[in-house]
């Protein structure tokens, strides 16, 4: 039955499918949509998913451009940056006598801050979870749409609003917030602390509160849809790992983002109402402020209670996507399906009890650090289970080395190289040396930044046909992959050495430090690769947008010969996803090369004596 034709497939769903009376409600015009309700205020999860993706892409370009600019400062501190003055205006200070333009130090900090904020929240949270949870949850569990399509739309528009506010803050005369993506007080609590701490920070807070609302609304829908709207036969243990990961991510997000909101409300009170939750004994320009009794560490606890789970909110969906894409393209069942789910759960749970590893040198009780070190290092165990299972899945597989699969492999290597360093830093004694150095930057960019991007790319190349009924260009995809992989290692590998040598992160210039001067060439090297990496991503964007209209057309409903339900829907997406009945599920998602069959889709009934669960 492996070569079941499309035609037979439809018959199967219609004969054996589950009639939820969906189409009885069609009365002609009711589903006629106009431009506004189709493309803008859409409530269709497939459209919302594209909105998240494209908005995420916009922010990725902005965030990456920021990094290129501050890398220019770090790599070529002597060169003139007067040529970007038309873009950055007064943030490039040109020395009238020499004509040499320099990045204003305040703006350097603003760029670093915005780079982090935008990429962590807008690109890797909204752009990743928002895109794929929306696209895949209903399609892969066999639902017509999300539990509340309206709330789903709101979720996108809160995200959009958050983006507009943040974008606006880039253009105000005092500049955007410049105190780091973690927004520690007092820099974030006192408007007079730096130029970005005034209006810039106010906008930053409003924007991120909108963002929290967006994440919570989205998460409510993802959780409810997975728990309540699965089609007949789709038991939890038959769900693809992608859905499992989105589901667990949504739970983590729902439990931790509100905590961040609490911290933000307290910060707002400190800024505007005169409370002193986070402020104590502060001198500004030699003057003591009358704000006493607060504790900046309290903010750090609230922030990192979200902040650490947040990094897993970013990586878990990527892990789910990678597991799913990998199984399809190695034509083998994923190794240790249940272990994969349990490790997702363990990681999710443990991620909520390790937050203080970001605070080892903040003055927390060193005995407390023991506890956090222990669990931090322990989290390497479920992480290794996942890596082990991916490697075992690859072993002996019939690997198709196409672009989605390459990015999947790339993800695994990056996750290993970046994850290993975490175990070093998790040890609070070692971390005293490494904290706030480039070692941290290397760690989290490999394990989270680039790895999550790779997961996202794997997902985009793999599900592009589902989104736009066309394929992306393979050659460009491969250039994109190899180029980006090389650049990623060229940029972040050397940073481990910088970090171990003690080079601090977030510094504007190292000229005046005798100890770091000889790293000038290494910094130049990194910057050159960062620029190349940036342009390679433009290649991806060109491929993406070109393929939407001109890519190779999809002629087969299931081009990858995949097992999951999204590939039983028609090539041209329809409202309600399935034109007739809903498919009924008989087996798990990973029946590849079973018996003598190359693949068996989830809605194919069991043969006599066959087992459908694992």
């Amino acid at each position, binding site marked *: 039955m492996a070569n079941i034709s499309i035609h037979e497939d439809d018959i199967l769903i219609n004969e054996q499918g589950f009639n*939820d*009376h*969906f189409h009885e*409600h069609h009365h002609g015009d009711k589903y006629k949509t106009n431009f506004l309700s189709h493309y803008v205020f859409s*409530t269709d999860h497939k459209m919302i998913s594209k909105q998240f993706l494209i908005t995420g892409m916009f922010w990725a370009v902005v965030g990456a451009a920021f990094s290129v600019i501050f890398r220019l400062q770090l790599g070529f501190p002597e060169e003139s940056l007067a040529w970007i003055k038309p873009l950055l205006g007064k943030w490039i200070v040109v020395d009238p006598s020499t004509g040499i333009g320099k990045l204003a130090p305040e703006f350097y900090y603003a760029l670093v801050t915005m780079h982090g904020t935008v990429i962590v929240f807008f690109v890797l949270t909204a752009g990743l979870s928002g895109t794929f949870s929306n696209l895949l949850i209903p399609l892969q569990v066999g639902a*017509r*749409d*999300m*539990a*509340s*399509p*309206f*709330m789903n739309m709101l979720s996108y528009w809160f995200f959009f609003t958050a983006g507009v506010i943040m974008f606006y803050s880039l253009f105000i005369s005092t500049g955007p917030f410049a105190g780091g993506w973690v927004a520690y007080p007092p820099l974030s609590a006192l408007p007079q602390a730096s130029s970005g701490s005034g209006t810039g920070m106010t906008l930053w807070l409003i924007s991120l509160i909108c963002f929290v609302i967006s994440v*919570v609304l989205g*998460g*409510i*829908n993802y*959780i*409810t*849809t997975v*728990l*309540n*709207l699965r089609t007949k036969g789709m038991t939890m243990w038959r769900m693809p790992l992608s859905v499992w990961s989105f589901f667990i991510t949504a739970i983590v997000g*729902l*439990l*931790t*983002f*509100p*905590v961040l*909101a*609490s*911290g933000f*409300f*307290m910060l707002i*009170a400190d800024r505007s*109402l*005169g*409370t*002193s*939750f986070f402020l104590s004994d502060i001198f500004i320009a030699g003057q003591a402020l009358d704000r006493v*009794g*607060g*504790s900046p560490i*309290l903010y750090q*606890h*609230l922030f990192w*209670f979200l902040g650490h789970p947040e990094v897993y909110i970013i990586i878990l969906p990527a892990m789910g996507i990678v597991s799913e894409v990998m199984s399809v393209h190695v034509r083998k069942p994923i190794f240790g399906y249940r272990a994969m789910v349990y490790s997702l759960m363990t990681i999710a749970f443990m991620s909520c009890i390790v937050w203080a590893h970001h605070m080892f040198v903040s003055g927390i009780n060193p005995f407390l650090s023991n506890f956090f070190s222990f669990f931090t290092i322990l989290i390497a165990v479920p992480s290794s289970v996942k890596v082990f299972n991916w490697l075992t899945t690859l072993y002996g597989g019939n690997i198709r080395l196409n672009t989605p699969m390459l990015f999947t492999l790339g993800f695994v290597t990056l996750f290993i190289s970046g994850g290993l360093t975490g175990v070093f830093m998790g040890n609070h004694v070692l971390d005293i040396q490494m904290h706030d150095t480039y070692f941290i930057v290397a760690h989290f960019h490999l394990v989270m930044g680039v790895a999550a991007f790779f997961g996202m790319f794997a997902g985009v190349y793999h599900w592009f046909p589902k989104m736009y009924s066309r394929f992306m260009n393979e050659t460009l995809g491969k250039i994109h992959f190899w180029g980006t992989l090389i650049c990623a290692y060229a940029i972040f590998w050397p940073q481990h050495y910088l970090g171990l040598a003690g080079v601090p992160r977030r510094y504007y210039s190292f000229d005046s430090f005798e100890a770091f001067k000889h790293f000038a060439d290494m910094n130049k090297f990194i910057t050159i690769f960062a620029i190349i990496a940036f342009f390679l991503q433009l290649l991806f964007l060109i491929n993406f947008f070109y393929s939407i209209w001109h890519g190779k057309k999809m002629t087969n409903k299931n081009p990858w010969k995949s097992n999951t339900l999204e590939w039983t829907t028609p090539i041209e997406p329809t409202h*309600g996803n399935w034109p007739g009945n809903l498919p009924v599920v008989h087996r798990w998602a990973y029946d590849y090369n079973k018996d003598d069959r190359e693949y068996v889709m989830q809605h194919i009934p069991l043969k006599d004596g066959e087992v459908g669960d694992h």
Partner: protein
Amino acid sequence: MEHVIRFQPGKIHPQKFALWVGMAGIAMMFAALTSAYVVKQSAGNWLEFSFPNHFYFSTISIVLSSFALHKSFVDYKTGNESGYKWFLFIGFILGSAFVVLQYFGWTALYAMGVDLKGNASGGFFYLITGLHVIHVLGGIAALIVTMLNAFSLKYKVTEKRKLRFDLVVNYWHFVDILWVYLFIFLLVIK
């Protein structure tokens, strides 16, 4: 787009479930605030003060409003139209009284000298109760819509209206219980 979701007998309605998930999120926000409160308090330099009586009355008011709304919902389902409308109205009045009492409670507290700029204990009190009132206001908005429907539409028990009313009442019970928790917390951990 409600048609997308079909009620499956024996299963909780997806929208009701979604509401509960949302409540869990809100609960986490207050859990964070109360944890921060405990941490800050145990660090010392903490001012103790006793609450103006308004807060006791407001507590009674919101608890009673929950009972009234529950009665109204039962009456709605069992066909007692006048009971449904009356108790809905009473619930709404008691709920609004809660907000008003909180407001006067704050001004009384302020007059006692507990202000935002002083000790963090005051700041926490205003912030926690204030954020709670914002959530109550959301409930009041929902109650207003429910009342507009109740008094303008013809009385009829339909699945859809029952569900909506159920959702509103559920949310209201939630902010009620949340308040009782917060109030006891603030009383005990001074």
